[in-house]
């Protein structure tokens, strides 16, 4: 018997042609998501200051570059002898201990672009020279199946835009709970069991069940999420995952990282919001026994100037830091911290091309062909446990 998820997949075919040869319907079923693996992307907007996020330990250059903004070694969350995380990432302690946090340093691309818009377009399209029309990397990845991706927030970012991929924007739990639970119940007859009617009836039963489940979940005391925007979005994401709507990709954004002035306080809060929301998310998934199926990728369009400016802030830079979180992840520091003295145009040279992260996620997690999506071959980083 077809599960609802495979039915939904095959229903796309049914919608396109009046009659579908059986073998096409079967292959759609076969292509159904392997183990239901999910990717959650958190896009940090504005340019997250990598140097104060993944901080070098024992590098004298750091103190000289950041007289006011530097973070003391004793305050860092130690990852290794040479790298420590900003203290606001302390909520990641449990994940780090379990080896479920991967920190990728020196991430960027050749000829770094310091425009928010252009650099974010490069990350979103995985193209160094994106045309106005280029589709997103996730959109392209999901196109062959015309799959659905969820954007949690107010708009679907370009990364999700594809030729046939459907990006659904959601930000309200009300969209998946019933304002009147009885309404969906009624008039479900055992009629002549016509094919289409039977299908709609099954979907209605599913919808009712899902809505009920979500309403109950909303009412019970789950792990506490911080009541920040990212916290709300990841809470909603977790609920949608529990509702098993069949989507493989969820994408959300956290803004505010463009810290040109008085960075210390703002950056501390931002990273705090980030780590608390993400750790609450994985705690929630653990208790729902869903964590094994989820990997979260966090990135920003660039790092910031290694030298602080006169306003106790930093400006647009180059190489950044990315995170990959989840039980399937190979924890620890990946890549080489960029040199703070051997610079290009005053800023660090990247040591890891971001497309290698995408290649790893596509190949080793989502089981999708990376070369087509990335329009080239990039050796995947070893970011997942085998």
């Amino acid at each position, binding site marked *: 018997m077809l599960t609802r998820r495979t039915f*939904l997949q095959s*229903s*796309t075919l*049914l*919608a*396109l042609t*009046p*009659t579908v040869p059986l073998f096409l319907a079967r292959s759609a079923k076969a292509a159904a998501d392997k183990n239901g693996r999910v990717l959650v992307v958190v896009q940090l907007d504005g340019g997250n200051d990598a140097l104060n996020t993944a901080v070098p330990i024992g590098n004298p250059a750091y103190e000289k570059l950041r007289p006011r903004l530097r973070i003391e070694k004793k305050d860092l969350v130690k990852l290794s002898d040479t790298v420590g995380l900003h203290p606001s990432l302390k909520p990641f302690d449990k994940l780090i201990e379990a080896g479920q946090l991967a920190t990728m340093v020196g991430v960027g691309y050749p000829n770094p672009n310091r425009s928010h818009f252009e650099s974010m377009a490069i990350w979103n399209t995985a193209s160094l020279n994106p*045309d*106005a*029309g280029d589709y997103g990397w996730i959109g392209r990845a999901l196109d062959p199946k*015309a799959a659905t991706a969820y954007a949690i927030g107010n*708009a*679907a970012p370009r990364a999700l*835009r*594809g*030729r*046939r*991929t*459907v*990006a*659904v924007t959601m930000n309200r739990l*009300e*969209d*998946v*709970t*019933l*304002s*009147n639970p*009885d*309404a*969906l*119940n*009624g*008039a*479900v*007859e*055992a009629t002549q069991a*016509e*094919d*289409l*009617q039977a*299908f*709609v*009836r099954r*979907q*209605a039963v*599913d*919808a009712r069940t*899902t*809505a009920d489940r979500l309403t109950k979940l909303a009412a019970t005391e789950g792990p506490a999420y911080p009541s920040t925007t990212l916290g709300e979005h990841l809470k909603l994401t977790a609920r949608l995952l529990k*509702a098993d*709507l069949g989507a493989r990709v969820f994408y959300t954004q956290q803004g505010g990282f463009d810290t040109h002035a008085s960075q210390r306080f703002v950056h501390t809060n931002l990273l705090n919001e980030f780590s608390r929301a993400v750790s609450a998310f994985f705690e929630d998934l653990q208790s729902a026994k869903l964590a094994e199926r989820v990997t979260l990728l966090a990135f920003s369009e660039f790092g910031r100037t290694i030298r602080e400016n006169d306003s106790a802030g930093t400006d647009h830079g180059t190489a950044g830091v990315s995170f990959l979180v989840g039980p399937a992840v190979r924890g620890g520091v990946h890549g080489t911290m960029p040199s703070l003295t051997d610079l290009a145009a005053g800023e660090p040279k990247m040591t890891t091309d971001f497309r290698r992260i995408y290649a790893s996620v596509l190949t080793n997690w989502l089981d999708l062909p990376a070369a087509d999506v990335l329009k080239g071959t990039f050796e995947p980083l070893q970011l997942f446990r085998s």
Partner: protein
Amino acid sequence: MPHTENWAPYVPDDKAPWDLRRVVHLHRRAGFAGTWDELQRDLRDGPGASIDRILAGKTSTHAPAEFAATADLLSTSALASGDINRLKAWWFYRMIFTPDPLGEKLTLMWHDHFATANSKVQDAALMWRQNDALRQHARGRFDAILNASLREPALLFYLDAQTNRKGRANENLARELMELFTLGVGNYSEADVKDAARALTGWTVEDGQFTKVLAQHDSGEKAILGQTGKWTAQNLIDMLLRHPATAQRIAVKLCRLFFGERAIDPEAVRDLGSDLREHDLDVGRTVEKILRSRLFFADANIATRVSGPAEFIAGTVRALGLFDPAPSTLALADWSARMGQDLFDPPNVGGWPSGRAWVHTRSLIARSNFATALMAGRDAGLPSPYNPASLPGSCGLGTGQADLLTFYHRLLFGTDPTESARSRLNGVSGSRLVAVLLSSPEGQLG
């Protein structure tokens, strides 16, 4: 081969009587659901006169005399604010109040066919312009629709026409033109797309207007669909119009609009395609042929099509007679988005995935919540809750629970509720009963 048999006209008989069920069906497919008085009128007057009225754009009994002026006012103020949401609200106003629901349905179909998304275009005025052009040509010949659409700045911008230049081709427009707007997959090669893109160079937008820029046009030799020549964009368009696959694709499109799942077999669709081709791809003529056909009114075609969100919403508002006061059209546009159809923002250039793809957990929840909101009044911008007794009462019909069930079942489905339905809905009364019928599985089919 004898296509006249496939598309023989509908003549009411014992097996396919002209009954309320068929009248409801006609209004659901050729419009957005009929009001009780429209249904009764058409039941009396028979299929011929009813379809005449629909084709002439004169079927609504609730179109205000100043409809055109009001609609213009709404679109003008929407454009003045540049707010795409107000343009969506304008379109819902049109769907509900127009004397010509068939015209709006066809416009919606073309909007899906020539899918263009404001999330990329970011210009309400250009989206309106395109919508207006689609409406003007909705029933025309396909060559008029295609030529007009390919000159709409919104579409050209959406498909990157302005970056398609001599020596630096962008294949987006060429590919979607061949794959989606005309021939369909399998009827052209990648080489065709490349040279079609070259033919389209210089066909662009400047200062918000369609322009042909000679300097950007690659005037060299191109080989497209087996024909070689120094093809221009217009040559390409003409070639695509002449190709038999285009007529077939339009026939499929029209059948998807007017026929339900498995309600029509491929041979009949092929016949329709050939007929279209023999008659200059005249869409209006083909629509008439469909609406007057036996196939259209056959049992296999009744209640076998999933209503899309906009159809479901506009249909519900019309059927319940919510004209004065009418629900907030801004709210209706928002509900439509929650059901998966955000007007002026299809998910991609392929348009909205339809049919069974409209029916899934999130959309069914939205439809149910919409029905509940309409009954409560508040979340639909209505001043008061819905009073289910007023509509049947005003027609001189009973308003007890059993009578309400009969009335609304007839209004929405054109049939009487079965005994098992009655017993199942025994405890449900008032506006809850209406909400249940609206969100039932049967309520999603039209």
